[in-house]
């Protein structure tokens, strides 16, 4: 098992508009990217509990041409609404970093 943070080059989060949060995981080489994709460790079922959403609210999209995996889910509240802690959504990626990937 290897932590995702030790396999990826970029792990980032950002708003995709005011209602969605999008997380990108990017890799430097194709082999690692393919291994992580096929490991099954990054699926709606495994990721949903990390963000307190249900499986069908979360989308995982592999993007071969950039060796990247995109994860899109609803924000807890619209960006900047009362109770907001991260208007840009730029610091919501940390739970991904410690995901264990069977390699």
């Amino acid at each position, binding site marked *: 098992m290897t932590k995702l943070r030790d396999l990826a080059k970029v792990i980032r989060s*950002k*708003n*995709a*508009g*005011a*209602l*969605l949060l*999008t997380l*990108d995981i*990017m890799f430097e080489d194709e082999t690692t990217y393919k291994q992580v994709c096929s490991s099954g460790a990054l699926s709606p079922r495994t990721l949903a509990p*990390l*963000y*307190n959403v249900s499986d069908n*609210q979360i*989308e995982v*999209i592999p*993007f071969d*041409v*950039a*060796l*990247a995996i*995109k994860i*899109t889910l*609803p924000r*807890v509240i*619209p*960006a*900047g*609404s*009362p*109770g*907001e*802690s*991260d*208007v*840009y959504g730029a*610091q*919501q990626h*940390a*739970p991904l970093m*410690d995901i264990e990937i069977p390699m």
Partner: protein
Amino acid sequence: MKPIRIMAASGMLGYGFTEEAFKNGLSMGLDLIACDAGSADPGPYYLGSGTAFVSRLAAKRDLGLMVKGGMEAGVPVFIGSAGGSGSNPQVDWTLDILREICEEQNITPKVVVLRSEIKKEKLKSKIENDKISPLGPIAPLTLNDADNSHRVVAMMGVEPFQEALEAGAQVVIAGRSSDAAIYASVPLRLGADPGLSWHMGKIIECGAQVIEPREGQDCVIGTIYSDHFTIEPAHPDRRCTRTRVAAHTLYENPSPYYLKEPNGLLNTKEAVFTQTDERTVKVSGSLWEPSDKYTVKLEGVKELGYRTIFLAGIRDPILVSTISDFLQSCRSRIAKDVLALGVKEDEYTLEIKVYGQNAVMGSNEPVKNSQAHELAVLVDVIAPTEDISRAVCAKARYSLLHTDFPGRMCISGNLAIPFSPSDFSAGNVYEFNIWHVMECDNPLEPVTIEKVDLFN
């Protein structure tokens, strides 16, 4: 087909670019110099207040160079989503800067202004005719939402920009615009392939995002040929890489493959990215799927009240170890104290965040036992008036400073308050309440087009 060359001056008007890149780009022969000035990222406040999130000085510097270069070379200059949210006051703010620039440079460009604020009456008639639908996880828009809205803008497509050129515009200052449309408008007008035009527009709209080395914002060049386009930095010493260009459709998008625009969908699933030399990336295979309806995105905010904040540190180890229970007792004390002022609980919101515990991720925070030896507490009060907002914040401050907790030794005060004054007025508070799409009878329906004489 003659290549069509577009320069994005910067990822954001006011974020800057190098003069060296700009001059070099200009010397390549351009069909358009443009810059996106907008983003919803900084949140609802800017659309609500109609103010810019970049400084006037920075916007003036960038716009001044663009207008000067454009006028000298005979190339049109477009600014989209002026002032940040593209609202009317932000368009006027940009026009005011342009007026000052023209006076100083002694130039008189033909200026066309495109505005896209949507009035409540228009919204309501669209709601009644079932022409507005949610864009993502948000409830359908009601007449009540329209009444409660403070300001709403529609995101225009390429057609108003093209119309402005027909009217002879040398400088276009536009309200809320699709980022890609600002750049795609010119190649589409000249008959370029729509898939390539939109994809090129999408890639260059963030400026130097696709450039290495990353040394701040800078100009990027997109050139459209008959069956492909190229992306290269305007700066001679920088380069665009295949990875950065390919990765760009990921950025701030829910999907890397599809981009919804007013009159269709950009599909980049079959797009091929090739590094043609050290600094240039070639893209082909981008597809355009036209839609039968013309829809514009609506962004709207409602006003919630007035915000006061208070920030302080906690270093006492006993209090650090019992912070959750302590805050719970403070909350009930604050509620009682505020009620005694005649302010009911549903008249305000009080949020207390603990940095060092879970302030950033809230209930999603996976670390349950923080090892922090010091914490920051942030008190955030929203109330209908400044007076009530300040009063609630003051009660919260007092309670946090002096409430007892089990084993308390620091009986002269629980907080390290870093500032005097301790409480800060943060102005009006707004919330996005409209994030929908609106069907239009024609592309120009949500936009007013106006030729402007800057000096009359």
